[in-house]
């Protein structure tokens, strides 16, 4: 009987029901768009968090280097970046001489330089002084 049923079941499965036409595109699009948007948001959040953590770690390492060496890396070696108040406070507590060096470096980064020969400020200052002397 079981075998009989299985045979008939097989016979029935040879009848293929009509495959319904595809769902209208907008319905699929809405779903797909939502999924894509969610995926993009998740990837964006992940990348943002990664960059932020990397930046924080780099900043911490730099402050530690300054504190350990007591000197500021030369302008050519390190990118210019102002130290945060937290980092400066920590330097002041842990290594006052390092703080001086860091402040000096920060000053160099923040104020326009006029100690080079080709510095625009220096040229302007000299011109100004020359004009006054002529007067």
């Amino acid at each position, binding site marked *: 009987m079981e075998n009989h049923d299985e045979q*008939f079941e097989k016979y029935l499965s040879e*009848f293929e*029901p009509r*495959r319904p036409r595809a769902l*209208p595109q907008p319905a699929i699009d809405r779903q797909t768009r939502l999924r894509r948007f969610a995926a993009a948001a998740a990837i964006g959040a992940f990348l943002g968090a990664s960059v932020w953590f990397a930046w924080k770690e780099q900043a911490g390492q730099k402050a530690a280097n300054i504190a350990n060496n007591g000197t500021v890396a030369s302008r050519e070696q390190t990118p210019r970046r102002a130290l945060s108040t937290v980092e400066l406070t920590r330097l002041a507590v842990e290594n006052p001489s390092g703080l001086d060096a860091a402040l000096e470096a920060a000053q160099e980064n923040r104020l326009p330089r006029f100690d080079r020969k080709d510095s625009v400020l220096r040229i302007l200052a000299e011109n100004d002084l020359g004009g006054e002397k002529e007067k």
Partner: protein
Amino acid sequence: MLYDKHGPALVAYACSFVTDAGAAEDVVHQVFLRLLSGPVQTPDVPVAYVYRAVRNAALNERRSGQKDAPLDLDSSVFKRGDGNREAALALQHALAELPEEQREVVVMRVWSGMTLEEVAAATGAPLNTVASRYRYALGKLREKLQPYRKK
């Protein structure tokens, strides 16, 4: 996706209520569009939910005027590889004549590829009941399709 896997079976199921393959397709479309368009609480057994929804939509469709529409060869919901359209139509008729709960079990088992345990879970009926409904249904279908099997 539910639509790809169970779509054809659902059209066959809906067709046993509305007796027109085109209307059955529309019913299945309608149900899936409703599912996709808004927040629907996901039931424990989504297949069972979709079957119920298709059944209700098909009954509504029938009430709205399709009830006595005659079957014609072009509206057959089934087709066979050997092109036997008479057998396909006979199956459609035979399915429509089955009691609803037997028809549901047959469609879920044969064309949705569900096991009897899954059908029992989907319909909420005990496994033994589902198994006997299935057996009865096969017996009736076998009887109705016998002339076409000999051909």
